[in-house]
């Protein structure tokens, strides 16, 4: 709960995703219903049960200079690219302090990932085994630490109010944004750069998720593999990338004349207390998070017109979430256009809350909900108004709100709410 109740707004957005190297190309792909899932053509994929993934559209090495890139884990590279876009989009021209419209002591950064620098860890283990101790990179520790992306983004923008990394598996990105909202609410910061990133497309995570029976093995139809709410869904498709937003107190944004995309209304958080990986099948924990959101904010069910669902394309999880929406919102659920954008981007794990917040914010800003693709046969248990196949216009009049749901292994549930201004 907040001590000052300051209104928080979104003034900048950035992304690098399987659909595009920036927000504009990602949004264009989402609205067009384009899949970012492709075959894994690397040699290491040959023996894996899963040979598809949503790989980044623009390799970070094309954007970040080589000397800088070689000391950043891939997840930190993604985060930095998305953060720089969001920072410039918010109208800042330099680091805090050099740009005098933001005080570094009042600027925070909260960037999360689900797994951290896993490719650095595994690649450096290969170096240790194959080439010996002396060849292990001295940059390994700052590259693999889970707070690396947050710390690097904090350094890039000059954040000194606090740099944080909440970790809650696939809810991490959303939890980061929720944490950032609270930093501003509580008066600890005026501006916070927040989001999620993930870079885990590597044989070990794929083998591990695959052996959990969590991933789609629809190798013959990559673009059709991620199919939330379809009766034939058989697991998630791993994605990579980052989504980062600039959150700001409404007062601070007004003072510098910043463009406001949306209000960041708040968050609802809960834990399932059920199982380490299985979602609670009736959506009890998710309902609790939704109820917390409604209790702790002035959000009205009547104004929620869009939900960017967690919807990973797993048999149990997709339905549990819809049950929770119905339980908390009753008939109000009927006017919520529910989109599963992971059908296009794949599942970015800790990055999901970041890019899906960007998608939710743009859905409000442009008043259009992206589609859920690949639903050939809608699961009869999907008791909600799913946006199928094509993007759908949202009401053009009045104040409307959108939810972004993210849930993670461990039973973490985070719901974020945004609203038009």
């Amino acid at each position: 709960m907040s001590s000052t109740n300051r209104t928080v707004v979104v003034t900048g957005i950035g992304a690098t995703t399987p659909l595009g190297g920036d927000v504009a190309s990602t949004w264009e792909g989402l609205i067009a219903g384009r899949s970012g899932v492709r075959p894994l053509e690397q040699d290491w994929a040959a023996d894996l049960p899963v040979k598809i993934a949503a790989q980044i559209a623009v390799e970070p090495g094309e954007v970040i200079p080589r000397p800088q890139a070689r000391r950043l884990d891939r997840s930190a590279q993604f985060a930095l690219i998305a953060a720089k876009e969001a920072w410039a989009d918010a109208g800042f021209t330099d680091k805090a302090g050099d740009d005098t419209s933001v005080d570094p002591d009042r600027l925070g950064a909260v960037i999360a990932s689900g797994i951290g620098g896993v490719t650095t860890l595994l690649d450096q283990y290969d170096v240790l085994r194959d080439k010996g101790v002396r060849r292990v990179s001295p940059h390994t520790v700052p590259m693999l630490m889970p707070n690396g992306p947050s710390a690097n983004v904090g350094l890039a923008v000059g954040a000194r109010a606090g740099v944080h990394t909440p970790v809650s598996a696939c809810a991490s990105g959303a939890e980061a944004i929720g944490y950032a909202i609270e930093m501003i609410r509580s008066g600890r910061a005026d501006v916070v750069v927040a989001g999620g990133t993930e870079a885990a497309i590597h044989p070990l995570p794929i083998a591990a998720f695959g052996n959990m029976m969590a991933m789609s093995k629809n190798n013959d139809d990559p673009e059709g593999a991620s199919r939330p709410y379809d009766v034939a869904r058989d697991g998630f498709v791993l994605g990579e990338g980052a989504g980062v937003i600039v959150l700001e107190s409404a007062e601070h944004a007004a003072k510098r004349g910043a463009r406001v995309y949306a209000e960041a209304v708040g968050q609802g958080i809960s834990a399932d207390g059920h199982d380490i990986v299985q979602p609670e099948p009736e959506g009890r924990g998710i309902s609790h998070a939704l109820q917390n959101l409604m209790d702790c904010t002035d959000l009205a069910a009547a104004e929620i017109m869009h939900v960017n669902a967690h919807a990973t394309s797993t048999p149990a999880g997709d339905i549990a979430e819809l049950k929770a929406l119905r339980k908390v919102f009753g008939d109000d659920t009927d006017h919520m256009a529910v989109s599963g954008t992971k059908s296009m981007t794949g599942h970015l794990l800790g990055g999901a809350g970041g890019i899906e917040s960007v998608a939710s914010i743009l859905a409000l800003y442009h008043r259009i909900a992206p589609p859920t693709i690949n639903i050939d046969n809608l699961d009869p248990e999907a008791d909600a108004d799913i946006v199928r196949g094509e993007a759908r216009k949202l009401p053009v009049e009045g104040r409307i709100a959108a939810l972004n749901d993210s849930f993670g292994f461990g039973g973490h549930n985070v719901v974020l709410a945004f609203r038009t201004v």
Partner: protein
Amino acid sequence: MAATQEEIVAGLAEIVNEIAGIPVEDVQLDKSFTDDLDVDSLSMVEVVVAAEERFDVKIPDDDVKNLKTVGDATDYILKHQG
């Protein structure tokens, strides 16, 4: 066959270029790794390891701190190369 001073400077220039992105022509004997060539303490470890491999020389950690300039490193390698 042992490398000449010229070959060592050229080799170090390639290494520094790879690690710090400094143009090879800027890597001269009188240049300081930290002050002139953007090589911080962690990157210096990378430079040393790459130089050890390239010139077949061992540079113990205790000696690394004495290698302030490209000239220092070149002299060290000339003296200790295998």
